[in-house]
């Protein structure tokens, strides 16, 4: 089963052999997490950084920014029983143009939000891998069957 994770959303799976997949990330950021022991996988994906960028698409249906989405994602992972100290986490995206000018700062700002919220939650360097700032299209995937996190760079898959 493949579950798509759209912009501003997260998905968490437990004990199911499912795959979570993002859309084309743009300069947005995806955070994938796999806790092999507790068989929990999660993936969240946002394209805009701060709370003021949350969007209400329809009544009550929100597309969340990183600042709003990441704490909810972490909270839900914890409720599901995920152990942040042993889980593998990958931060993917924040793609940039070849010479991204400083004033087009979205990739860096998105990344800054992810870093600061991850730092609050877990020992920073431990289990977090950053796959960021590519000049190509990037997708992220959490595969609970294989207990892996994958990134796809212009069709080339990398297992992390």
């Amino acid at each position, binding site marked *: 089963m493949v579950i798509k994770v759209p*912009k501003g959303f997260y998905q968490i799976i437990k004990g199911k052999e499912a795959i979570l997949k993002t*859309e*084309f*990330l*743009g*300069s*947005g950021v995806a955070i994938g997490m796999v806790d092999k022991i507790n068989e929990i996988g999660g993936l969240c994906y946002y*394209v*805009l950084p701060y709370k003021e*960028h949350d*969007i209400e*698409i*329809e009544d009550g249906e929100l*597309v969340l920014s990183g600042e709003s989405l990441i704490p909810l994602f972490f909270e839900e992972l914890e409720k599901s029983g995920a152990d942040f100290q042993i889980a593998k986490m990958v931060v993917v995206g924040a*793609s*940039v*143009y*070849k*010479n*991204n*000018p400083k*004033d*087009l*700062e*979205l*990739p860096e700002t998105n990344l800054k939000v992810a870093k600061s919220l991850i730092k609050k939650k877990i020992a920073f360097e431990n289990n977090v891998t950053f796959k960021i700032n*590519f*000049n*190509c*299209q990037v997708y992220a995937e959490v595969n609970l069957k294989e207990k892996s996190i994958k990134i796809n760079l*212009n*069709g080339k898959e990398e297992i992390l």
Partner: protein
Amino acid sequence: MKKDDKILEKIFDKVDTIPTFPKVAYQALNLLREEDIDFKKLEKIIKSDPGITANFLKIVNSPAFGLPQKIDSLFKAFMFLGINQIKFIIIASVAKNYFEKDLIGYGMKAEEIWLHSIACGFIAEEIAFDLGLSPLKIEAVYVASVLHDIGKIVLDLYTKLEIEDFRKIIMENPQWDFIQVEWLVLGVDHGLVGAHLLERWRFPKTICFAIRAHHDPDLMIQDEIASITGLANILANMIGIGGGVDVFNYRVPDNLLKELNIDVKKVYKYLKSGLYKTLVFQRGF
């Protein structure tokens, strides 16, 4: 004859096979430039093309246009819409027919290229409004931003055929941008082909130039319409509306925002509203 000369010849032959920009849309846009607009006449013109009419009604009923009720007739739609919105929807209705097939060589599905084009239109429109452009310039911004990738539909077949060359050259020359790679493999880039197509359709030079320049950092900043088109394309990709094998593999002028007198805060406004409108628009399709 060299291999790339042959490809180039075929590419320009292929330009002739692309259906010309519909006369109905030209007539409708011309009518909308008049001071006193005869909406009955406008309805009659658009109705004469069932394809455009169907697309128009589908687009206008998208929540992105926020109309208070379901619209089932063109005339009713005109009563609810502003002139700029009608122009935008006409151009989008035409563009829908050009972006109906997957771009296999460029690695984009039909709905992705279509949505990317519309997102660019939404973002470019807002920039143009903020900069206080004239109605004629706003119309030019709509055409250039929605049709900026039209050259890809001409080049896609050749990009697909030469995909191994593309991959090899990109791998061997990571410092090159995609324009350089297109030139080396095909002898032309999709901006130039798109501009050539619109020149043949007799669009104003400023629109053709904007399409020509949308990935060229030196050309882009020489003209306001081109700068807006280029920026809208950049921002649409940044919010994840677009993609393809070439995305992000381009250079951006360092002074693009400065040239347009746009500050960082405004950029976030365009990103947010562009994302909102596009996601809402997507719901209608």
